[in-house]
C-alpha cells in the first residue's frame, strides 16, 4: 500500500470566548465559500474528514471545523480541574462567533450535526443576516429526549465506551461497519463527562421552538437533513421544525442514522451535494 496524505490541515488558534482564553484546534480543506462545520455532542471535528477530502466540495467551499473546548484536541480552559463542564446555549453561540471572527469567515454557511444541528436554528434566527445559510444535520428546534434525565447522573457518563454504546443504535444498519465503528470511536475518545456536559445544552438549554418561526429564510436559507433511523432527532422532529420555519427545506435521508457525514459518507454525499450547490449557486 502506497502512502497517501490527505488534503486536510490541522492547526490551533488562541481566542477568547466570553472573556476567557482558549486554545482551539481546527481542521480545514478547500477554498471558496466558508463552510463551518459543527461536530456532535461528545465528539470532535474528525466527523467531517470525508467532506474535507471531497474535491467536489472543496473546489467551491473552504470546509472548516473546530473542536469545541473540552473536545478533541481543543483544551479545556485553564482551571478546568475545579469545574464541571456544562455547555450552555449562550456559550455555544459565543464559541462559534469567536471562532468565525478569529478565522475571518465572511458570511459562512454553518452546518452542524445533532447539537450542532440544533444551534444552527438559533444562529439563523439571531444572526441570519451575516450567514449565507445554515444546514442542520439531524437538527430540530427543540429537545426530544429518548432516555430519562436521571440516567445523566449515572457514573457511566465518565466512560467513553458507555457513551458509544448509548448512541450506537443511532447509526443506521445500512452504514458500513468501518465507518460505524469509527463514528463510535469518537465517543470512546471523549473526556469523562464531556458528553454529559453537552447534554445540558441538547436536552435542557436549547428550546428554540417559540422563536424559530421568525427566521428569515430569504436571507438565510435553512436546510434540515435527518436520517430515517434517527431516534434522537426523529424525522418527525425535523419535519415539525421545518413547518415552523417558513421556507425551510426538510430532507429525510433514507437508510441513514444520526451521524450522516461520518457513518455513511458515500450515501451522505448524494444528499449534501445538491444542497451545497443550491447555496453556492444562489450567490
Amino acid at each position, binding site marked *: 500500500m502506497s502512502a497517501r496524505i490527505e488534503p486536510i490541515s490541522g492547526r490551533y488558534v488562541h481566542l477568547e470566548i466570553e472573556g476567557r482564553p482558549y486554545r482551539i484546534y481546527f481542521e480545514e480543506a478547500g477554498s471558496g465559500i466558508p463552510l463551518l462545520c459543527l461536530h456532535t455532542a461528545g465528539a470532535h471535528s474528525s466527523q467531517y474528514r470525508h467532506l474535507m477530502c471531497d474535491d467536489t466540495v472543496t473546489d467551491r467551499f473552504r470546509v472548516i471545523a473546530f473542536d469545541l473546548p473540552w473536545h478533541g484536541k481543543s483544551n479545556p480552559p485553564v482551571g478546568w480541574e475545579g469545574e464541571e463542564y456544562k455547555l450552555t446555549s449562550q456559550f455555544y453561540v459565543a464559541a462559534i462567533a469567536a471562532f468565525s471572527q478569529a478565522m475571518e469567515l465572511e458570511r459562512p454557511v454553518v452546518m452542524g450535526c445533532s447539537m450542532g444541528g440544533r444551534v444552527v436554528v438559533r444562529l439563523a434566527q439571531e444572526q441570519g443576516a451575516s450567514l449565507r445559510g445554515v444546514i442542520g444535520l439531524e437538527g430540530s428546534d427543540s429537545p426530544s429526549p429518548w432516555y430519562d434525565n436521571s440516567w445523566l447522573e*449515572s457514573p457511566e457518563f465518565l466512560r467513553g465506551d*458507555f457513551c458509544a*454504546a*448509548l448512541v*450506537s*443504535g*443511532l447509526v443506521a*444498519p445500512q452504514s458500513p461497519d468501518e465507518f460505524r465503528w469509527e463514528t463510535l470511536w469518537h465517543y470512546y475518545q471523549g473526556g469523562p463527562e464531556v458528553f454529559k456536559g453537552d447534554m445540558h445544552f441538547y436536552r435542557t438549554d436549547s428550546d428554540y421552538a417559540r422563536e424559530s418561526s421568525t427566521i428569515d429564510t430569504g436571507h438565510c436559507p435553512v436546510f434540515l437533513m435527518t436520517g430515517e433511523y434517527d*431516534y434522537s432527532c426523529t424525522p418527525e422532529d425535523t419535519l415539525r421544525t421545518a413547518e415552523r420555519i417558513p421556507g425551510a427545506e426538510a430532507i429525510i435521508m433514507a437508510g441513514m442514522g444520526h451521524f450522516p457525514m461520518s457513518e455513511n459518507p458515500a450515501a451522505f454525499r448524494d444528499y449534501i451535494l445538491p444542497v451545497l450547490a443550491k447555496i453556492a449557486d444562489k450567490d
Partner: protein
Amino acid sequence: MFECLKDAVAARPDLQRIGRYMDSSFLLEVGDTPYHVTVKDGHVTAVDIGPFKMRSWDFAIRASKEVWDVFSSDMPPSGYQDLFAMTRYGHASLDGNTAPLLHNLRYVKELLALPRTLRQETSQ
C-alpha cells in the same frame, strides 16, 4: 429465541471480555415467554425459560414475538434497529434497575443481537 445466548457467548472470547465486569440477571420477554438470563464475569451461565414464580432479576426487556423477529431481521426498519429505538417508539419496554444494563451496555446490546448474528453466520 434467546436459548442460544449461553453457547454463543461461550464461543466468543471477545464478547466475554467486553462483559467481564457483569454480574447480573435479567429478564427478556418474548411475548408470553420469559427468558431469565444469568451473567457472571462476562459468561452467560444460565438461560432459564419461565413461567417463574417470583424469580428475581435486575431489569426486564419486554416485546412481542413479532417485534423481536423484526429486530432480529437482517435489516431492521427504522424504530426496530436498537433497544433504545424500540423503547422510544413503544415497541419494547425496559423496567427495573437499569444500573447493571448501563454499566454493561455494549455487552447487553450485543447479547440481544446474537439471534441475528448467529442466523447470519449460519447462512454464510
